[in-house]
């Protein structure tokens, strides 16, 4: 039973900065990080990672929590919280397959509606990981499983007066395909770059930014 609880905690703990995978091999246990980029709008994200050993898995797991907000509308109302866990699935020499599972809760305000969303995401990274650098291809899927949507007076007056406020079952999902890489300086400072192409879960155009780009910085201790 305790294994099950631990496993649940791993998945309830939450994000997706896969450069954290590099810390997997690190003798240090903690890393705060900062990420800036476009995903899905211009965002700034503050995060913290911590390594710990999971006995029954016989390996180290990197858990993390991060909060990202729109750079132009810096607020809780336009932000996202993620909790996740990163786990090495396969390893041969420098070649690794790494899985990153996360849960997220986000909020957005627009002139038409306010939405809160809850989603589960999983990213698989396949690449070469050395002590001071890595490069990998990534595939990510995120499923939105719950939305709370409330419409503004503007939306009702200008477009649709009978719009329904309330809890909605998931309003879709998305895939992202990308490449990422990073390096470590003096065994303490990490830098990470990723570029991803988003699609809807039915492989239609995502509709927003055609590419997502992130630059991350981390410090290990």
């Amino acid at each position: 039973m305790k294994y099950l609880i631990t496993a649940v905690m791993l998945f309830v703990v939450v994000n997706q900065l896969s450069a954290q995978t590099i810390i997997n091999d690190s003798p240090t246990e903690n890393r705060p990080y900062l990420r800036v980029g476009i995903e899905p709008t211009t965002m700034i994200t503050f995060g913290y990672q911590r390594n710990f050993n999971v006995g029954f898995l016989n390996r180290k797991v990197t858990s993390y929590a991060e909060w990202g907000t729109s750079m132009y509308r810096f607020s809780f109302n336009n932000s996202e919280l993620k909790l996740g866990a990163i786990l090495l699935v396969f390893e041969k020499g420098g070649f690794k397959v790494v899985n990153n599972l996360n849960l997220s809760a986000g909020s957005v305000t627009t002139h038409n509606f306010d939405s809160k969303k809850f989603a589960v995401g999983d990213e698989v990274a396949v690449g070469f990981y050395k002590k001071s650098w890595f490069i990998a291809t990534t595939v990510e899927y995120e499923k939105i499983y719950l939305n709370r949507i409330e419409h503004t007076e503007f939306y009702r007056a200008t477009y649709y007066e009978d719009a329904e406020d309330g809890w909605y079952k998931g309003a879709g999902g998305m895939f992202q395909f990308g490449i990422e890489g990073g390096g470590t300086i003096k065994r303490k400072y990490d830098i990470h770059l990723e570029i991803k192409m988003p699609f809807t879960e039915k492989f239609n155009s995502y509709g927003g930014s055609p590419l997502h780009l992130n630059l991350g910085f981390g410090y290990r201790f």
Partner: protein
Amino acid sequence: MKLKKLWTLPIVAMLITLTLTGCGELLDPDEPGNLVPRTVAEDPLLPRIEVNGTILHAEAFGDISNPIIIFLHGGPGSDYRAFISQIGVENASRYPNERTITNGGLSQLQDEYYCVFYDQRGAGLSPRFDKGVVDFDMYVADLDAVINHYLQKKENETGIGDDQVYLMGWSYGGILSTGYINKHPERVKDVVMYEPGPFSKKVWDYFIENSESPFAQIGEDWLDGYLLSHDHITSDTHERADYQRILGAFRGQPEFNQNPNTPLWRLGAFISNENLDFSQSDNYDITSNITASFQGRMLLIAGKLTEEPYPEYPDMQMSHYPQAEYVAIAGVGHTGLWEKPDEVAAVIRNFLTQ
């Protein structure tokens, strides 16, 4: 390596998700009527006509013995709500019996003309169509069928055998008017356009050269919300796509000086994505037959605020017509016919009675 245990983790995640989504009655974002209004295919209370193998959301105002004006909305994908609304006076409920006045916006022309408004196929409150089904030729055929429908109705009800109508097109509706006249020049007496989209590649190129880069909008609140909303709603279905697309309505091009409060019922996202593609081809020109065959006149109306970034645009557009006039409305941009409908209606009356 205890791989068997690793496989339990996704199963646990799935169980958590199923538990969370199974709690209580949840609304369905894809059910018509929840996020965006039902179309005539789903709401029997909406006014309609049946033409060319489909039903279209449509209304007509005035005495049918008068000359007929067919109004063509923009987009593609938009609707006729702004045509019959009027800033500060009437916001045109989709149900005619819930409106406070019956001659709002340009429908005030009903005292002299029989005014016909319809939502184009896949747009507004007309039924949705999947990607790849609708094209420009179908839009032209629909317009021809709408014209025939009302001319036949006129003959049936009054015995008057008209064979021509006036067209009034706004933005993309101007492109549709021109495409129609190019194919059926004998069916149109005169045409009025409010800031029509480009009729040829040359005009299109001019328009692009003088338009701001979309990147100039980075940091604007509406764009930030629009982009961030993609993490909350993805656009795989009609309803979600429409809901998301309307976030950008009348906001995306600041040089158009549009009033963002201009009303719409629904912006058909799938239609707006595909029906202009043909206009970006190298040989785009929908006017090849007009100069030689069209006997009528064209009036181009524009807002002064839109004229400023595109000073040569009116002349370039009018050069495709043998007889054309130009009137600019002060203090407004691309949504000027909603903001100053009395002034625009007066210009139309003056032109049509010359």
